[in-house]
């Protein structure tokens, strides 16, 4: 989902930045508010930010397809620190990843929208919808799976809108087929670690999760 500089037309780069601005504003306000309420929040946020950085740059080989890809980590982060704060930390992670050759600066808005906004909110909403109907591990795991897949669905859409405006649906599908076969096993891994981390925290340090759920 890391779209490089030069791939998207500048107009679309601007549009994706503009779409992200409200999420950044709400996210920064949320972080300020929660930091005042709870001094533990900021170091927790920093640690989750570091986790998102590593998870979303860690390429896992999928020998069956002969390629590799990475999970996103934002659904897990959203459950723990809240969705708007996750948009902010994922933008920071994506900014630094640009210096590792993953993504870019002009495409930071597009990459933030796919991973930070869509991946975060689809995962978070999945968790919220399921948490009273299913065990925590299942709700969290499905949140991870859905957020992961939706991130790549969105990246494919961004490429199709920017590069193939006359045949968006066809190219959206085509680009997603490029991601999909490798991404589905990675999304299953994302299911496993999101389920494991969130259910363990829910069992042993539930107050950490309440931050993400009660204020989200």
């Amino acid at each position, binding site marked *: 989902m890391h779209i490089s500089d030069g791939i998207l037309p500048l107009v679309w780069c601007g549009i994706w930045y503009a779409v992200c601005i409200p999420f950044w504003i709400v996210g920064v306000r949320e972080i300020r508010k929660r930091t005042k309420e709870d001094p533990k929040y900021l*170091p927790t946020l920093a640690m989750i930010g570091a986790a998102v950085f590593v998870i979303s740059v860690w390429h*896992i080989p999928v020998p069956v397809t002969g390629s590799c890809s990475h999970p996103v980590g934002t659904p897990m982060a959203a459950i723990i620190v809240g969705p708007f704060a996750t948009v902010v930390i994922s933008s920071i992670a994506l900014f630094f990843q*640009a210096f590792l*050759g993953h993504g*870019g600066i002009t495409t930071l808005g597009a990459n933030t929208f796919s991973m930070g906004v869509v991946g975060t909110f689809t995962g978070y909403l999945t968790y919220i919808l399921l948490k009273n109907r299913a065990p925590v591990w299942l709700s969290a795991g499905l949140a991870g799976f859905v957020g992961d897949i939706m991130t790549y669905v969105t990246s494919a859409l961004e490429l199709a809108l920017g590069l193939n405006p006359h045949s968006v649906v066809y190219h959206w599908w085509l680009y997603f087929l490029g991601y999909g076969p490798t991404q589905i096993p990675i999304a299953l891994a994302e299911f496993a670690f999101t389920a494991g981390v969130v259910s363990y925290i829910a069992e*042993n340090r539930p107050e950490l999760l309440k931050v993400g759920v009660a204020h989200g």
Partner: protein
Amino acid sequence: MDRFVVYSIALLVLISSAIIVASYVGHKKGELEGTDDIVEDLATSATHVQAKEIVPAIPEDMEPIGFTIAGILGGLLVGYFWEDMFGTGERK
């Protein structure tokens, strides 16, 4: 050490093992191309746009050093705040 710390260390070992196994698989299978590059190549082949390097990326052989420094700084930061974040308050 409480259960949470033990579990965290176990998780660290598990993740490190997974990274080592994944690296080994990658090494044995040769250089596996990332899906980001595959899809970008697909997207650019028909439209004649090219990826540009606007920010200077850290050379690939310097990445382990960069990750090590980041890991040390991150470890110091998390270690400093560990009791605040996860402590049960028994030692305070």
